[in-house]
Structure formats: C-alpha cells, structure tokens
C-alpha cells in the first residue's frame, strides 16, 4: 500500500539520520499549545469555526451576538484573505470583533491568532470565537488551540462534501447543516450528509440551522452556553 516517490537523482547517502520526528507543523502546534494554556488560565472557551466560503459563518455569528451577547462576554477573531468586511458586519450588530487579514494565505495559523489576541482585552471574556478563512482544506491541518472545532456545511454545497474533505470532518466536534430553509428546493439530504460525516467521525454532533427562519439557532446558543459553563466548571474543579 505504501508508495515511495523518488526523484530521478538517486541519493548516495553514507551517513543517515534515521527515524527523526521533525514535524513540519511543529512550530504551529507549539504556538497552539501556548494559546490553549492561556485560554485555560483565563477560563475562556475557544472555538474554531470553519467551512467553505459562503456557508453562513458570519451570519450565524451575527445571530449569536444578537441572541446571547448579553448572557456571555464574547469576542471574535475573523480571518479573511482581504478586507475588513466580516468584522464590520459583526460590529454592526454590537459584536466585539477583530479582523485578521491573511494577505492571501488560505488558512489561519496559530501564530496569527496569538498576535491578534494581543489586540484584544480578554479580561472577563467567556467565549472567544475564531471564524476561520472559508476553506475546507488547509484550515483542517492547523490547530489553533481551540476547545472545539465547529464546521458548517450549507445545503447549497451538496450533501457529498464530508468524504471529499475528510480531515475537516474528522477533526470537528460539531457539524452545523446551514440554510435548511432551502431544503425544499435542493437535492440535499440531511440523512445522507450525516451518514457521510459519521462514516468519518462517528462521534460528530449535528445541528440543523437556518438563520433566516431561526431554525436551530436556540439549540446552537444553548450548545455554546453549555460548553462555556462546562469550561468554567472544569476550571473550578482544578482550582479547588
């Protein structure tokens, strides 16, 4: 099953360092651990929200701020290749958001999050949400130190996506099927997408969502508040 790709020039190595474990994403993972530690110290729940472009991440976060912005102290970091548009949309509904402009990079790396956190006052914050760059490929490989990874899949994308992007669904705890108000117009089966996702990740939780009709938004907010409470309880146990 293993396939070795060799370039045309054969190596004539006589001194070999064997079985090294120099992981190429080690630098990212090191910073991610630092973020995780800092979040634990400050009892902040950290979420990494991922999806394709246009599946409704920002719209969902706008709804989230409107519904529970007064029940939890929420800050948002939002990543995009260019423009401040998403942060502007979140601020327009009263959100405290900071834009990370990646300048063409297709994903957020832990170092970018760490640097952006310097620009946020995290005192008293309950929940820090990272809205990743819209992309189901590269963000999957980069740990940002999050407690949970949440992936949206819109009904307009088609129900065959989880197996096309297995790593993203493998590493997510919650899948949000968004734009379910369009189901009657689309050849999209929620049962199929859930079966596809659970072939990869049998433990993945699923919520159906329509921010336009309001479907599932309460369930999503309950999930968020419950996870915030669990993080604080866990911290209280450690402290006692």
């Amino acid at each position, binding site marked *: *099953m*293993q*396939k*070795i*790709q*060799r*370039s045309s*020039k*054969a*190596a*004539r*190595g*006589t*001194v*070999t*360092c*064997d*079985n*090294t*474990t*120099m*992981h*190429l*994403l*080690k*630098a990212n993972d090191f910073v991610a651990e630092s973020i995780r530690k800092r979040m634990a110290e400050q009892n902040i729940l950290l979420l990494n929200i991922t999806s394709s472009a246009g599946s409704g991440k920002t719209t969902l976060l706008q709804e989230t701020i409107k519904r529970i912005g007064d029940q939890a102290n929420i800050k948002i970091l939002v990543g995009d290749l260019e423009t401040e548009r998403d942060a502007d949309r979140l601020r327009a509904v009263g959100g405290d958001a900071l834009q990370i402009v990646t300048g063409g*990079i*297709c*994903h957020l790396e832990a170092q970018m999050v760490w640097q952006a956190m310097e620009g946020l006052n995290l005192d008293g914050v309950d929940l820090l949400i990272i809205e990743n760059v819209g992309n189901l*490929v*590269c963000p*999957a*490989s980069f740990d940002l130190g999050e407690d949970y990874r949440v992936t949206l899949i819109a009904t307009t994308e088609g129900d065959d996506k989880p*197996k096309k992007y*297995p*790593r993203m669904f*493998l590493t997510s705890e919650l899948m949000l099927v968004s734009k379910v108000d369009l189901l009657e117009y689309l050849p999209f089966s929620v049962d199929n997408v859930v079966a596809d996702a*659970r*072939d*990869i*990740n*049998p*433990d993945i939780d699923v919520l159906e969502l329509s921010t336009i009709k309001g479907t599932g938004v309460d369930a999503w907010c309950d999930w968020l508040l419950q996870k915030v409470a669990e993080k604080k309880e866990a911290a209280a146990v450690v402290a006692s």
Partner: protein
Amino acid sequence: MHEISLIRTVFNTLEAEFDAEELSRLQAVDLKVGLLSNVEPTLLQNAFAAVTQSEGKYETATLNIETVPVEVYCPVCDKNSPVKNYKFACSCGRPSSDVVSGTELLIHRIHFAEPAAVRST
C-alpha cells in the same frame, strides 16, 4: 496546500538542527506524508525544485516522499485497520475515528555524504 512554505519549513528545520558544514554534505531528505495531510507529493517535488533553484542552495539534494495510508485503531480488536472508501472503521465493522497514521507531515530521514576527514581514514 502551501507546498512552497512547507519546503521552506523543511530547510528552516534542518538549519536549526545542523550546522553549515553538515548541510553542505546534504544528499537527500525523506519525508513521510500522510494521505490526510492535504499535501500533494508532485507539487511538493515541484516546490522543492523551485526553492532550491531560486535560493541557490541544496541544489544537489533530492527529496524522497513516502505517502502513508490512513489507519484507525480499534480498542476492541486491539489492532489497526486501513481506512477504505473513506469509511473510518475497523475491519470488524466498528466505527473508529482514532487515526493512528495518515496525518503525518514529517522529516523522516536525512542523508549526508561522509565528511572529508572520515573519507580519508
């Protein structure tokens, strides 16, 4: 995904671990690349050629890429099974997302020419 930056990371990693004299004898770097790493071996080879040529170093070195299949661990059977048809399950049928291989992205082996002092003895 971002093969050029990964190749730069390979060189940065080597330069942090070895001194210039050792790296002047670099012959080959073997990478292990899991099928879930979202990295394409052909693009990685192209990126390796592009970076070595544009930076004018390690031009005689070669890159070998071993792709690693995806395997999951089943605690009931206490064994690993290959993932087939994107179904993350043991061969016994029990689902498992305990991935034990397939996400690798690491420098596995490094080949150097013998130092001149060793060669003369």
